[in-house]
């Protein structure tokens, strides 16, 4: 799917967690097997829309994340499609063993919401900024990982987690309001990357909130005569390796961008594909093996280089190094 960047207009700023909440409400309307399990932060992860609409299908389980994943497994084994959502640091990391054995080994349709993904969580600081969730979830067999780029896509991904993913899914979304720009009629197919901009000099491969930054970086580079492609990896697993290899073939240089540790995240996943099938020069933008900290989202994204100017600079440097 190819779209000219000129068509991608920002409609406003909406948190991706709102997209998750709205998507859950929509799919629950269509599929009465959908139930939701709360972990005391129901509004914070936007499951309050579901709770208000379907109170009898909402089950509060308190601050007990290990139990929530097991209860979700038991409900899925009994024919339900449970959504269990809390902050990604808890839903992916505190509960990893439950997800591994009770959910992934059983290969059952539990849909896990990972909220407050990335450093853009802001002032809450390191404990609440999920930066390792992709690495851990990616290592689990049978798991699908969806990482939508805006609120519209978060709603699409949440619905697709039910309609198009038969087994376990982890849906990653953020806290802050971010640009909402994906055309509502752009089809969302899990496992199929979206090329959002075309250029021949380099490909920016990004996920989640970093897609908007990558698109802005592309604009900066355009002005300097460097024309890059932007590939939206909204599904980290299964990874669209064909699209990644194609990008490497057509542009020869790859820069990955993610709000996640460099170890084990999108960049690693892309490198795994390219190193084995089509090695090309690569650079990776992400968290350099360190914890986050308190600050405004803008300050933190700037400090850790997760913004358009730095992405453009990294891309430019990489191209210059290759030429020299």
């Amino acid at each position: 799917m190819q779209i000219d960047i000129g068509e991608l207009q920002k409609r406003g700023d909406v948190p991706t967690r709102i997209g998750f909440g709205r998507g859950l409400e929509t799919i629950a309307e269509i599929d009465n097997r959908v139930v939701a399990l709360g972990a005391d932060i129901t509004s914070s992860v936007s499951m309050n829309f579901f709770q208000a609409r379907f109170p009898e299908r909402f089950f509060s389980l308190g601050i007990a994340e290990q139990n929530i994943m097991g209860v979700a497994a038991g409900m899925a084994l009994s024919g339900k499609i449970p959504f269990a959502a809390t902050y990604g640091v808890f839903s992916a990391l505190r509960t990893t063993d439950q997800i591994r054995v009770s959910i992934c080994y059983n290969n059952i349709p539990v849909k896990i919401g990972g909220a407050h993904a990335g450093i853009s969580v802001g002032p809450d600081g390191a404990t609440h900024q999920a930066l390792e969730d992709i690495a851990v979830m990616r290592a689990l067999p049978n798991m699908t990982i969806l990482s939508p780029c805006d609120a519209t896509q978060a709603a699409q991904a949440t619905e697709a987690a039910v309609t198009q993913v038969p087994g376990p899914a982890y849906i990653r979304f953020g806290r802050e309001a971010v640009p909402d720009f994906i055309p509502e009629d752009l089809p969302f197919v899990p496992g199929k990357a979206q090329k959002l901009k075309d250029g021949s000099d380099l490909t920016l491969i990004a996920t989640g909130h970093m897609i908007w930054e990558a698109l802005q970086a592309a604009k900066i580079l355009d002005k300097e005569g460097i024309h890059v492609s932007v590939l939206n990896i909204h599904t980290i697993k299964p990874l669209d390796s064909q699209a990644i290899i194609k990008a490497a073939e057509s542009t020869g240089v790859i820069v990955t961008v993610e709000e996640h540790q460099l170890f084990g995240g999108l960049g690693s996943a892309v490198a795994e594909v390219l190193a084995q099938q089509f090695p090309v020069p690569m650079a990776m933008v992400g968290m350099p093996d360190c914890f986050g900290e308190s600050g405004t989202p803008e300050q933190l994204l700037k400090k850790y280089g997760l913004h358009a100017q730095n992405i453009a600079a990294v891309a430019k440097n990489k191209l210059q190094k290759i030429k020299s």
Partner: protein
Amino acid sequence: MKSAIQDTKELKSIARQLRRDVINSLATAGSGHLGASLGLADIFAVLYFSHLNHQPQNPHWSQRDRLVLSIGHVAPILYASLANAGYFHRDELATLRKLGSRLQGHPGLDTQLPGLETSSGSLGQGLSIAVGMALTAKYDKKKWQVYSIHGDGELQEGAIWEAAMSASHYKLDNLTAIVDRNRVQIDGPTHRVMSLEPLPDKFQAFGWHVLECNGNSIKDLLDVLHKAREYTGKPTVILAHTKMGAGVAQIEDDYSWHGKAPDAKQRIAFLKALDNAN
């Protein structure tokens, strides 16, 4: 189940058969967990041949009672029970722990073994799964009951108590947790490894209906399981006092037999001991 057996002599003989199958399958496998598999044989005989509402010829029957084996390491007693109940042929028990077998060392749902409700093996997860099943039955207004089987050492896992809290919060009286209270674990007696008592008080404080019984007495088990099914308003926990290795006199209460399999000589000796037991 139509063929529900109430006769204690017949159930005793079934329990002996399950123990034989456990000893044989573990000896053939060359590894596995003998002690608790034997200690639980009476509980499994009563559940699968008298108490559970199930249809071995129709394993996915939607109205069946569910049994969650939280302690996956005692898979041999579950497999022996399923085979003898008719879920699959007893010959398959000889494939335990072998490459390509449906009888994995710890149960795996991906094997599609008939009668298996969930994978298990990581301790402390099964009670949450049972809560999820019981909650679903309540929500869907179904009559089926949920049973979960736990080790006493397993209760040291914190997740068990998260699950215990949620079971009483939702008044899951369709849930019965059975604790194999054999008082031993790998490192030794539970009171030395990590104290569990006062165990009945702990469950009571968590809002549970607590029953205790001799977990190696068929008569006691029939009685206590009936009481648990009839009880309303709270989930029930049965603290079933058992002997690890029960039925084989020379290894009873010997915790070194938690994770061992008998060799060829021991196999013969243990089978003989079984026959000599009353």
